[in-house]
């Protein structure tokens, strides 16, 4: 299968601190990859580099064959990104905000309304489209954040904690939504809720202190670390404590 995301020898250093070190992995088209690690492991930094927001200190990143440093515009056209903090303008209505994001993502004017309705329906924000973002609950804000990432139907989605702040039923809805993206979209999903990863992803990449400590299918990791019944939580704890 064609690799949609190819990361080779990626490193990021902030002055004396190493945030990410020699990270190499690839994600084939249509896969949902669980991107795990404790706080400060370098997940968000890696995702910011993949989206072209931050430069890397070393290594290369290719998305859909385009180098993120040499052709950032081509990469950005193909990525939907939900950062850790949803990038929202509190003074705007949800509709105004989504229209704005759709237009800067290159959605054609004639398709704007259809596209807006599609993502609003998919993320369950249809009923709050005309409300100001500042008046929304945390859960709705998070969903609006997911909605903006889906606009323009980008082939690659990078989602940093997409279910943060959602109640269990909303979480289940977003999880179903993300699962439904498999096949047509390549997704990098970062979350601390490991049960979600188990239900959504086949493979996981685990980072610890900037280094990759695992990159494999969950069942292979379970098998290697204590047997098929080993939970992802146990795998996570073993790998991140050992490093």
């Amino acid at each position, binding site marked *: 299968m064609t690799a949609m995301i190819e990361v080779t020898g990626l490193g990021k250093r902030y002055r004396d601190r190493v945030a990410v070190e020699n990270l190499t992995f690839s994600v084939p088209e249509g896969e949902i990859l669980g991107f795990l690690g404790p706080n400060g492991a370098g997940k968000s930094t890696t995702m*910011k580099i993949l*989206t*072209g*927001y*931050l*430069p890397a200190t070393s290594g290369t990143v290719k998305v859909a064959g385009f180098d993120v440093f040499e052709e*950032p*515009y081509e990469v*950005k*056209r193909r*990525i939907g*990104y939900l*950062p850790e*903090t949803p*990038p*929202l*303008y*509190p*003074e*705007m209505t949800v509709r*105004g905000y989504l229209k*704005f*994001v759709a*237009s*800067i*993502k*290159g959605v054609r004017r004639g398709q704007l309304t259809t596209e807006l309705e599609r993502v609003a329906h998919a993320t369950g924000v249809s009923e709050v489209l005309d409300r100001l973002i500042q008046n929304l609950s945390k859960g709705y804000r998070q969903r609006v954040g997911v909605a*903006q990432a889906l606009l323009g139907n980008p082939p690659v989605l990078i989602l940093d904690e997409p279910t943060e702040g959602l109640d269990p039923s909303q979480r289940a809805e977003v999880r179903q939504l993300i699962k439904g993206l498999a096949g047509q979209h390549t997704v990098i999903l970062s979350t601390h809720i490991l049960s979600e990863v188990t239900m959504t992803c086949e493979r996981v990449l685990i980072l610890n202190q900037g280094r990759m400590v695992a990159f494999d299918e969950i069942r292979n990791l379970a098998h290697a670390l204590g047997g098929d019944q080993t939970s992802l939580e146990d795998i996570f704890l073993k790998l991140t404590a050992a490093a």
Partner: protein
Amino acid sequence: MRNALAIARKELGIYFSTPWAYVVFTAMLGISSFFFVNLLATFKEVQGLARVYGWARLPPEYGLFKNLTDGIVVQLWDVIGVITLFVAPFLSMRLFAEEKRNRTFELLMTAPVRPWEIVLGKYLGGVGVIWATLGLTIIFPITLSLFGSSESGTALEWSTVALGFGGLLLWGATCLAVGMFVSALTESQMLAAFLTFAILLPWMLLRGLAQSAEEPWRSIANHLSFSSQLSTLSRGVLDLKALVFFLSVILFSLLLTHRTVEAQRWA
């Protein structure tokens, strides 16, 4: 360009959905109305003196009160120029600083938008608001033309008024360009406003500050001073040098802002 216009529309929408624009509108109208009424009173007083003693016996500086254009509108444009210097930092401060604080800068920088489109869009949005603010002051010459009169028949020389107003718009656009650059340097809106003011005010007063300096520094300061360049335009003189000067400051500020936004990619 489509992205730049989308960003400009977004900026305008946010300006008008918060109290800031209305506070600035009120401040501009309130303060300029105060000076307008004062100028009217002075104009009336000097006209009264001229009727009694004749223009020849009055001090030469009273000559500008012979007509409403020079006596009121040109003076008012100068005052509004100074008010603009105070209000522009409050309009420009949020342009980038707020995006950085709210983490929405990440959205712009990860969308397929080129840095120059972000800078241009934000600038157009900001200029839209400052021009709307300055646009309100056109009410003063309109009032004069409706209720004023002169010996020549028409109350105002509209070409002078329009050129002066054009100069004001250019001045507003200049203040905003400088302010936007400062806003791109920080996450703090108040710091952005303060620094913008700290740059614009001495630049405005450069002519006065350099009075005691020796040549050629005095001439250079005089040429670079905002007040020198603005005074010719506000008097309705189509001064190409002043136009080039203001356009250069705008362009230079936009280029610096662009470099600052671009630098994010290499942070």
